[in-house]
């Protein structure tokens, strides 16, 4: 709507309650002062300044364009993030798709009892932890090392080239990446040829169950190590160059500068990301593992997410699958909230503090 401006607010505020002229002037004056104060804080102006004196309906009318713009997104979250939570009711039911939530038989904790008695569930849980742990040890530090390497390259052109190269795999889907790995590491792949030409025994990287957690970590590093450097490079960039210079003038060598300037400089980011990573320990690359589960077998390749998928959608054991999913969701939520709490302790912004600004 053209013409909708600060004046609209004033009109909207004043129309229903006619006031005397001096009152009106005072009100306007207050608002103008409010505006100035707000603007000097560098924030968006009118809503905070004028909003308080309007009734709810007036505010809705004033913000109707913005509300209409927000509606599709809000509806999406309501339908696809919140409404599905009711689907977890099926964790307590003998759920049958054709009977629905309302009419399926309520079985209480029976699904959970069944779940805990299922050895496949414990295998999936163990695999999840093993893969997570190996990823934490191998995949977490890799981008830090690469970022340090990149930042130490003096030539801007080479650095930019390497960055372009290492960011690219992040945008490639898991199907393609697993396909490429199969061609390179698989039975007919280049690595096998290299190994057999130097007399090493054949080893099928792609289907060996014992190697699977390592394979998952290697693939994750190939795909996302470069992308992960962005955050650490930014942290390295934000270190005051004067500190390095001052340290060098004070006689600090390369190693000493690294220890006393670089490390403290990036530590907050490293700790924050580590904590947040710990919060998502139950989630290990679902698509990546789902694609390769059949190649290595369920004993090595089943994780919590694939367990839920196979028991629910594939073999129709809805109740048990939903119970496993619910456990994962609840534990995951607790871990993420806990991780954020710890992050705040360290004086960092977690992921949910954003909303306060």
């Amino acid at each position, binding site marked *: *709507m*053209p013409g*909708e401006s*600060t004046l609209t607010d004033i009109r909207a505020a004043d129309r229903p309650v006619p006031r005397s002229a001096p009152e009106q002037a005072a009100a306007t004056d207050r608002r103008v002062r409010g505006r100035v104060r707000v*603007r000097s804080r560098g924030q968006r102006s009118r*809503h*905070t300044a004028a909003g308080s004196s309007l009734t*709810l309906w007036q505010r809705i009318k004033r*913000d109707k364009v*913005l*509300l209409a713009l*927000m509606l*599709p*997104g*809000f509806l999406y*979250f309501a*339908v*696809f*993030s919140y409404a599905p939570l009711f*689907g*977890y009711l099926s964790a307590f039911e003998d759920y049958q*798709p054709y009977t629905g939530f309302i009419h399926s038989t309520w079985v209480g904790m029976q699904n959970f009892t069944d779940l805990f008695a299922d050895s496949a569930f414990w295998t999936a849980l163990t695999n999840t932890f093993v893969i997570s742990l190996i990823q934490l040890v191998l995949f977490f530090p890799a981008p830090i090392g690469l970022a340090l*390497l990149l930042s*130490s*390259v*003096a030539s*801007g052109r080479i650095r930019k080239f390497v960055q372009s190269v*290492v*960011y690219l795999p992040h945008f490639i*889907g*898991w199907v*393609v990446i*697993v*396909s*490429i790995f199969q061609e*390179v590491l*698989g039975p007919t*792949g*280049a690595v*096998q*040829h290299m190994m057999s030409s130097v007399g090493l025994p054949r080893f099928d990287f792609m289907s060996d169950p014992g190697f699977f957690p390592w394979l998952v970590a290697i693939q994750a590093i*190939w795909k996302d190590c*470069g992308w992960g450097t*962005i955050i650490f490079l930014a942290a*390295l*960039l934000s270190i005051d160059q004067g500190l*390095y210079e001052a340290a060098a003038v004070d006689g600090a060598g390369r190693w000493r500068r690294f220890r006393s300037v670089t490390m403290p400089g990036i530590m907050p980011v490293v700790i924050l990301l580590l904590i947040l990573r710990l919060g998502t320990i139950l989630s290990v690359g679902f698509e990546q593992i789902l694609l390769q589960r059949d190649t290595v077998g369920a004993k090595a390749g089943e994780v919590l*997410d694939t367990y*839920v*998928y196979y028991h*629910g*959608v594939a073999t129709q054991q809805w109740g048990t699958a*939903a119970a496993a999913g619910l456990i*994962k969701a609840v534990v995951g*939520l607790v871990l993420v909230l806990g991780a954020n709490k710890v992050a705040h302790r360290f004086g960092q912004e977690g*992921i*949910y*503090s954003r*909303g306060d*600004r």
Partner: protein
Amino acid sequence: MDIRPSRTGRPPWMERPSRLGRGGKILAISLISVVVIYPFLAVVATSLSSESDIAASGGLVIWPSHPTFDAYRYVFSGGIVSQALWISFLVTVVGTALSMAATIGMAYGLSRSGVVGGRFFLATALFTMLFTPGVIPMFLTVQKLGMYNTLASLVVPSLVSAFNLVVLRSFFMGLPAELLDAARIDGLGDWRILTRVVLPLSKAVLAVVALFYAVSYWNAFFSALLYLNDTSKWPLALVLRGLVIGGEATSAANEGVVPQQAVQMAVVVVSVVPIAAIYPFLQRYFTKGVLTGAVKG
């Protein structure tokens, strides 16, 4: 991203690098580049290879001695791969457009303070970053809404990403307030402020967010696996999964016309090329996009 924008080389106080350190660095960087680039090159080479080349190398080909486009001719000649390519293209274009519209609208509303219900909407969106509804409830929801086995199921259930929403909102909030005030004084309403002031100033970040959405739609295979049971509706990623990982034979290979492996690798190339083509143009904006969303908020 540039590490030291003002410097072209080594600052004066830094000692000369040792020969060993320099050599190690060059070696490490070359090795990393090769590890990333080699598989792509080998895939392209194999897709252009003839049966004899593939038989001679035993698998991936480094350099095709008789390059042929047979595999690509087969891929684009109709049949399941062409069909899947078209579906992936459609889903990516329509999905990205819808996602952008919904995300821009919500991010714009959330970037303005004092909007009625703004805090509630923001909390609603941010809280979804803490949990995911999970496979089973999502499946049941999609089924309930009658979207099972429709192409809409590839787009609608992943319409807005809270991460992208936060990226856009942070960017909109960082625009100079004076500019928006000036537009308002000139008589522009919320809609025109968005289309005439905010969006033109946000082209870079919009491009990055659009890329994130487009890539996720293009690469998605699990939503298709979960929600589609009609193979004629499968997107490219799912077809590729069948061909390479599942080891399904193509009709061309059955007829012995085009080597199976060349066809597989041609599909890989076709899956990667659209991403590789737009990626260089957007690369310089990545840092801003990632950082606003990831740590700083």
